[in-house]
C-alpha cells in the first residue's frame, strides 16, 4: 500500500518520463507532505506545480481520488495510505 501521484504530460520532462510516481517509505499524512516527497524524488516538478511561495499554481488542479483539494483543505488535505493524487492542468487557455 502506497500513495501514488499521477504526473501530467508536460511535467514528465522532470520525472524521467514517468507518468506515475509511487511514494515509498512512510506514508504522507497530507497532500503537502506527499508533494514534498515528490519534489525530493523529482525536484524539477516543484516549480511547475507550485509558486516560489509554495502555493499551488492557479491553473493547476490537484485531486485526491476525484476530489479537488481546493474544496478539501488544500495542501493540508489528509491522505489515506493508498491515496491516488492527480496533478492536472486546468481547462483554461486562450
Amino acid at each position: 500500500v502506497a500513495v501514488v501521484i499521477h504526473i501530467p504530460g508536460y511535467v514528465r520532462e522532470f520525472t524521467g518520463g514517468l507518468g506515475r510516481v509511487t511514494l515509498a517509505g512512510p506514508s504522507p499524512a497530507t497532500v503537502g507532505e506527499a508533494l514534498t516527497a515528490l519534489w525530493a524524488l523529482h525536484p524539477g516538478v516543484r516549480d511547475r506545480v507550485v509558486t516560489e511561495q509554495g502555493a499551488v499554481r492557479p491553473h493547476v488542479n490537484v485531486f485526491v481520488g476525484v476530489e479537488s483539494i481546493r474544496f478539501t483543505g488544500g495542501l493540508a488535505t489528509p491522505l489515506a495510505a493508498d491515496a491516488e493524487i492527480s496533478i492536472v492542468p486546468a481547462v483554461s487557455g486562450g
Partner: protein
Amino acid sequence: MATPRQIQVKDGDALVLVGTMKGAFLVRSNGARARWEVGGPHFAGQAVYAMAYDGRAGRRRLWAGTGSMHWGAVLRSSDDMGKTWTNPEAANVRFPAESGVSLKQIWQVRPGRNEEPDMLYCGVEPAALFESRDAGATWTLNQGLFDHPHRPLWQPGGGGLCLHTIVPDAANRRRLLVAISSGGCYRTDDGGRTWQPRNQGVRADFLPDKNPEFGQCVHKVVQHPARPERLFLQNHWGLYRSDDAGDSWRDIANGVPSDFGFAMAIHPHDPDTVYIVPIESDEFRCTPEGKLRVYRTRNAGDSWEALTRGLPQKDALETVLRDAMATDPLNPAGIYFGTRSGQLWGSSDGGASWSLIRGGLPPIVCVKAAVVGEVAKARVPGARAAATPAARRPRGGKTAARRPSARAKRAKGARRAAPRRGAARKKK
C-alpha cells in the same frame, strides 16, 4: 505539441527573434534580407514576451522568457540556435521567500553592456528587476528597487504591473533606467542600490494630477549608445525626449496622427533617428484610419514622417505592442515589427520600403533583431561602411512638419472624439 521547424542559422546571418502569445519563432536571412526562413514554434502554446540574442564574449546565445498559463514562467537559453533549450529544474527567476511575492510573467531579458559580458537584466511582473552577473546562470532580485517606497503605489496597466524596459546607460556603468507600467521611469546612478523617479514633464492623463512624480504609464524607452544622455519615450499618450538622461522630458509629438502608441526603436547608427507606430487611442488601440504606418524622425523628434511603402494603407486595423519593434545593426539598417494579428514586417532599407516577412503567426508580443557573430561578416549588397551614420536628408520632414501635430491639436483644444481622450480612459 507542435514540433518546431528547425532552421540553419550561420554566422553573418540577420536573425529576428519573434515572441508570440503561443510560442517563439526564429527568422533568418543573409545580409541582403530579401528572403527569410522561419523556424518554430518553440515552446508551442506558451507566451514568450521576452527574447534576446547575446553575442558577447563569443557567444551565440538565445534567451526566451517563456510563460505557461499552467506551469509558470522561466528563462530558457539556447547555444545551438534553438535546436535545444535549457529548462532549469528550479525556476531561475524567482522572488525570495521573504518577499511574499510570486513571479507572474517575464517581460524583458536584456544583455548588459559589452564591457560587462556576463551581466544580464530581466524585467518581470509584478514589477521588479532581476540581475545576473554570471551570464544568466543565476539571477537575483534587485532589492533596492523592490524596496522602493513607491512600489506599493504602482498600479497595473492593461498588461499587468510590469517592468518592461531596461536601459543600461552606454557611458556610465553605474547608471540604469527602467520603465514600469504604471510606475514610470526610475533611474539608478549607483549601480542599482538606490532608485529615483525620472518622469518630470511626462503626462499621466489617466490620473487627477497630470504631472505626478511617478505613476506614468511608460510604454517604451530607447537610447542610442553614441548619445547616452538622450532618451526617447513612447508614453501612454505622449512622445517625449530627454537630453539629460531622464532628468526632464519634453514633448516631441510633432506631426504624428496620434501620440498614443506602444513600440519604439532607435536607428542603429543614427542617434537622431527613431521609429514608432502610432495607435489611434487607448480605447481603440488600432492604427489610425486603417493605415499601417511607421513614423520616423530623423531629427530627434522635431518632425516625423510616415513610412508607408509596402505597408497596407486600407483596412489595416493593426496593433503593434511595446516590445514588438526592433532594428538590426546592419547598414542599411533593418527595421522589423510584429502585429497583434500575427504579421511580421521588415524593411532592409531603414524603413523606406517594407515587406511582409511572414503572416499567420500567433499574436506577436516581442521582436528582437541581431546579426549572428561578427556584424562585419554579414554580406550586405551595396552596403556602406557600417560605422557611417545614415545620411540625414530632411526627406519628408518638411511635409511632416506642416501637418498639425498632436501637441498643436491639444494646445488648440481640438481634441478628437471626446471618448478617446476622455476621463474614462483605460490605462495600459
